[in-house]
């Protein structure tokens, strides 16, 4: 089955910084994939490249099996079907625009103006703002954080997209509201068959909604697979460390140092300077491989895979 959206050997560099450094990742119709990693790992850059907002330095993004268009017009058409849900709804909404106008903006850009108010009412109602007409004249300041995020989601839904790319969609929201927004993403998948790539640093979010998880470290996906497998039986020592520092985790593994620099990617396995397995390994041959032999790019399709010399065999 052709994936709906696919990154194929994708690289995005900013000068010397290789933010995305060889990523294969597939998103199928009706699938929710969580892209997990710490800040600076390249996950947001990858999301932007998948949206056609950032041109790859190498590799390509495929939609429905065809490379993303490069013309302004073609890209605009693509951006209607692949919608971004940003992290901070307050920054995403113009404070001087009513809910109606905020949701209408995308429709007007894409010249989908017939039946505008019906489309807007339907989108608001799908996003859980009911009755929708009551929200038409309301300004963002009159809404709570959760309601603002619903307006942003309604703005995306109004365009009848096939993919949502959500960048930390709940991290700016209160704990009691987060679950409601995540439940909405699940419902949209069930009702509309919407595929979603959810970029998050929060493994709890991934566990709550994702079918598959891809763990990113320093520009590469280091482990991928079904959520149950990656989050319950992690194989990469980085995934294990991330899981171990969850509040309810046992025996936290604190990785030394801060997340490393995309302008100075270590040789061999890029995780080796912080790797707890390597630090305690007594196998000199393995240690040599970790320090000097690079790992291949994981194929990002439905199976499971890990980029690790020690556990990946």
């Amino acid at each position: 089955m052709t994936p709906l959206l696919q990154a194929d050997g994708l690289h995005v560099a900013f000068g010397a910084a290789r933010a995305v450094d060889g990523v294969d990742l597939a998103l199928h119709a009706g699938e929710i994939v969580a892209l997990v990693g710490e800040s600076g790992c390249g996950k947001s850059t990858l999301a932007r490249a998948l949206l056609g907002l950032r041109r790859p330095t190498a590799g390509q993004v495929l939609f429905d099996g065809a490379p993303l268009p490069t013309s302004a017009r073609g890209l605009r058409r693509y951006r209607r079907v692949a919608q971004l849900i940003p992290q901070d709804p307050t920054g995403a909404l113009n404070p001087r625009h009513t809910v109606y106008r905020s949701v209408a903006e995308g429709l007007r850009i894409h010249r989908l103006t017939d039946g505008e108010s019906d489309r807007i009412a339907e989108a608001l109602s799908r996003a859980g703002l009911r009755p929708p007409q009551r929200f038409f004249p309301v300004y963002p300041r009159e809404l709570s954080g959760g309601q603002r995020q619903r307006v942003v989601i309604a703005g995306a839904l109004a365009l009848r997209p096939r993919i949502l790319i959500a960048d930390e969609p709940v991290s700016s929201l209160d704990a009691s509201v987060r679950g409601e927004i995540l439940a909405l993403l699940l419902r949209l998948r069930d009702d509309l068959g919407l595929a979603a790539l959810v970029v998050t640093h929060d493994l709890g979010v991934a566990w709550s909604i994702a079918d598959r998880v891809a763990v990113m470290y320093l520009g590469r996906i280091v482990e991928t697979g079904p959520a149950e497998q990656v989050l319950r039986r992690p194989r990469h020592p980085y995934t294990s460390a991330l899981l171990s520092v969850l509040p309810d985790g046992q025996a936290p593994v604190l990785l030394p140092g801060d997340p490393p620099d995309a302008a100075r990617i270590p040789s061999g396995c890029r995780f080796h300077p912080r790797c707890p397995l390597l630090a305690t390994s007594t196998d000199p041959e393995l240690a040599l491989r970790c320090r000097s032999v690079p790992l291949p790019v994981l194929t990002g399709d439905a199976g499971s895979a890990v980029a690790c010399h020690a556990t990946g065999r």
Partner: protein
Amino acid sequence: MLELRDVSVGYATPGGVLPAVRGVSMRLGAGETLGLAGESGCGKTTLALAVLRLLPRTAHLSGEILLDGEDVRAMSWGRLRAVRWAAASVVFQGAQHALNPVRRVADQVAEPIRLHTPAIGRAEVRARVAALLDQVGIPARRGTAYPHELSGGQRQRVTIAMALACEPRLVIADEPTSALDVMVQAQVLSLLAGLVAARGVALPLISHDLSVLGASCERLAVMYAGRVVESGPAPAVLRAPAHPYTEALVAAAPIVGDPASRRAPRGLPGDPPDPANLPDGCAFHPRCPVRLPGCATQDVALRRVRSGHVAACVHAGPS
């Protein structure tokens, strides 16, 4: 060490006084950790600011705030200046905003030391700054860096070093980790836990994340609409919450790996109330899944659930 007695804070606005904190009492001894949980607007930050009298002028404070038995409200400005940093200090959320972008971090850590011990020599200041930075896991040579040259986690650790500079016995940490990655968050929390253990620091830790507090604190207090609605030993509050709001917060934090929270994100319908327009009766009743008819008119005071565990709910009581 710290005792609050019936503390209330209201902010004067053109539309009237907005109640931010409504009658909060709590106490905290040396070497104790208290987790204060709640969502935005519940009054937890206002409470932290009130302890060091950092509230804006529009705030009206009532009740008593005792630091080592001395009422903070009655302190002269001179006394208050001596107390801030030296007896009690605060670590705020968003380190990047708390640091001066055009001064080297070592100079910023040195500032409270110089202010509080004017007679101190240069070499001694330098040694103390190096020791403080080392304590928070930053090599002393990084002291010459400007804030923008450090990562978010390093910057937050610099603010913790500043908060510790004058060896306070009380450190108030207000969302110290919420802007940080999980790995860095774990580092900062273990650093704070180490301080409590090694120096007997009393640590009120404020967060919206109940699971973070549960892992780091002995006791928890949950605030809603300016009030403490439940407090008790952390394991009891998390395992057997007695207030439906606490229960919802516990359920909202999925346990990774637990089949019960798989594909089952749980939230609470509705939103925290607007302080300008608090519901009658129990402030939580409009969102409460187990409300009774009387809850809309009758507020409930904290009542005993079991030893040391109280909750403000009609359903709460000794089981």
